[in-house]
């Protein structure tokens, strides 16, 4: 397969996933907002949402004040933020367009329909009810796209690249959410009984609440939530799930052999997995945990980089 094609598929996978994750985070926040006790708490929540979905620093540099409507626009459709949901979906659509010859026709149709339906969004974009509709459509689109991929694509190289994009994006996002929540908890230490709400939010951001309470008491003990979101192999947004699936996919891709060009990638995957399983997350102090998560988030980004280098994935712009 062409490197450019692999690159497009990988980024399509990542961008669909990124848009869906950010939509979910924003959706959760729009509901939480109603219960926020005071202005300070609300601002803190928004700060954390911005940190998860984009960059708080970048937002503040541009607007210098936290205001719901501005933030919503900044995260959904604003042209000043390269990670808006709209932009992620547009990149995914572009990537699907250039690889239409190897994708199921329905996948292109799903992504294209989303694009065509959104052209009128701006007109009633002012109302939050419009935003909720938008987020819902986006999450549905992502799920439908994944359904098409799962139900009709051959388990070959193109499929693998889409999935690896998705898993790496998920692992990175999970690490980021945990990082942000930990930081919040750390800052707050001992002063409030908010810990429960923080970890509940983490689970909701990552669509893991229902799965979590099936196996754990609903006390939202930080150790248990962290253990679940980091190490629970059965939960499809846990870090362990993402990394082990990436490793299996690459073993498959390489026919079970480690060659000179893929050795670095395998080494790194092994290191990351050892880090995950060799760490007693539940017993860690918050400071220690922060360090671990920081380190881990960097490892995830490094993994993406090494993966791209191994398969000569190119930046999307023309090189000459």
């Amino acid at each position: 397969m062409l490197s450019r094609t692999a690159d497009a598929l990988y980024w399509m996978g990542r961008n669909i996933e990124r848009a869906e994750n950010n939509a979910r985070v924003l959706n959760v926040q729009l509901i939480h907002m109603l219960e926020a006790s005071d202005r300070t708490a609300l601002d803190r929540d928004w700060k954390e949402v911005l940190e998860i979905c984009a960059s708080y620093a970048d937002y503040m540099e541009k607007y210098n004040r936290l205001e719901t409507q501005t933030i919503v626009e900044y995260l959904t459709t604003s042209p000043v933020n390269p990670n808006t949901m709209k932009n992620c979906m547009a990149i995914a659509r572009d990537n699907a367009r250039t690889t239409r010859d190897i994708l199921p026709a329905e996948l292109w149709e799903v992504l294209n329909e989303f694009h065509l339906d959104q052209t009128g969004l701006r007109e009633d974009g002012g109302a939050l009810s419009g935003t909720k509709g938008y987020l819902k459509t986006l999450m549905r689109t992502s799920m439908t796209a994944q359904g098409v991929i799962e139900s009709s694509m051959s388990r070959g190289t193109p499929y693998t690249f889409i999935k690896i994009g998705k898993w790496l994006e998920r692992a990175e996002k999970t690490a980021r959410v945990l990082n942000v929540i930990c930081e919040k908890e750390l800052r707050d230490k001992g002063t409030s009984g908010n810990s429960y709400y923080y970890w509940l939010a983490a689970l909701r951001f990552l669509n893991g609440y229902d799965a979590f309470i099936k196996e754990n008491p609903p006390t939202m003990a930080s150790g248990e939530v962290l253990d679940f979101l980091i190490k629970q192999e059965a939960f499809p947004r846990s870090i362990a799930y993402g990394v082990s699936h990436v490793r299996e996919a690459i073993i498959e891709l390489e026919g079970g052999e480690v060659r000179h060009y893929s050795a670095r990638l395998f080494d790194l995957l092994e290191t990351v997995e050892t880090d995950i399983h060799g760490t007693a997350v539940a017993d860690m102090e918050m400071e220690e945990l922060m360090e671990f998560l920081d380190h881990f988030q960097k490892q995830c980004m490094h993994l993406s980089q090494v993966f791209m280098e191994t398969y000569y994935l190119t930046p999307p712009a023309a090189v000459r």
Partner: protein
Amino acid sequence: MPFDFIPIIIPEEDWEEIETGMKQRMNALNMFLDDLYHDQKILEAGVVPRELVENNPYYYHRQVGGVDIPLANHIFLSGVDLIRDEHGQYRVLEDNLRNPSGMSYVFQNRYVMRQVYPELFFNHEIRTLEHQISELHDTVMSHAPKECQDAPVAVLLTPGSYNSAFYDHMFLAQQMGIELVEGRDLLVQDDVVYMKTIRGLKRVDIIYRRIDDDFLDPEAFRPDSTLGVSGLLGAYKKGNVAILNGIGNGVADDKAMYVYVPEMIRFYLGEEPIIPNVETYFLSDPERMDYVLEHMEELVIKNVGASGGYDMLIGPQSTEEEREMFREKILEEPDRYIAQPTIKLSRAPAYQQGRMYPCHVDLRVFVMNGKEMNVLPGGLSRVALKEGSLVVNSSQGGGGKDTWILRKGGDGDVK
């Protein structure tokens, strides 16, 4: 492209004549191209004026003169635009020997028709398009360079997803199961072409390119081209890669060279053209020019290098102002223009927005040539959906129709 659901129906006898006529024409044009880039017998014989060739901007003798190519075939795929005149005679309006597009629409039009009116296909015996993609694939593969040992690797080279014909490129690559590549996916090392894959470099033997000659290789043509591949021409000249269609075909399909195609058929094949041209006047001939300038209202005047329905004056529909503008252009550069009588273009019924009305149509016939020549049964019927318009190009309000070739014995009546 808009679609009109009333098909164009061609009886098999008529189609056989078109088919034979197209094969004859493509044979002659291919021989002409091979001759031009080798011995130039036709210029020696004075059948085609030498200056017409040498002044042609798409004549690339410096780049590809004397190069031997697989099967000595320059025209792997052509699209010939035909019209029917008021006597029912098919005539060639234009040859497209560079990058004819629109083949995907032939398949799509048929697909839509089958979805919408499946019952029509039970009642009529229509030549199928089913095997045409594998014909096209075999045609591409038959151009493997001599040195190619293993199964040849073919790719379709596109300028990218922003090109207006990208759908066509995507469709053909997908259907033929060949890789769809952009210039930046290819690389030339020691006169061998490679594509950049996730496993490193992979050798490419055949390139079905949908990029114009002058963008192919910045070292040999336009240095500002970012679509092409540096060193591609070198690989082509060494015979390490086949490029389809051949480089330099543009010299044979412009509107001036068109006039000489019947002469080419006589010169190379010793035959009379089966499908004639539309009568055409050169404006470089002063007598003709006087005639044309006096009769602008009755004629169609075209720029020899333009395509897509641009830089064209349709006399009967023109305003005094437009005619004046063209008069000036002609006087300035008479060599750039030709004139043709307005043919009473055949019309066919179209149905749009709840109304049936007659529209002008033409037919683009696709001819594939490899080890054997094959004419796609039917082709792309283009229709000028703007009422009264003579311009069928999709960029100017034209649409498409399905084209049916009835099988012999099928009487065409609904049973």
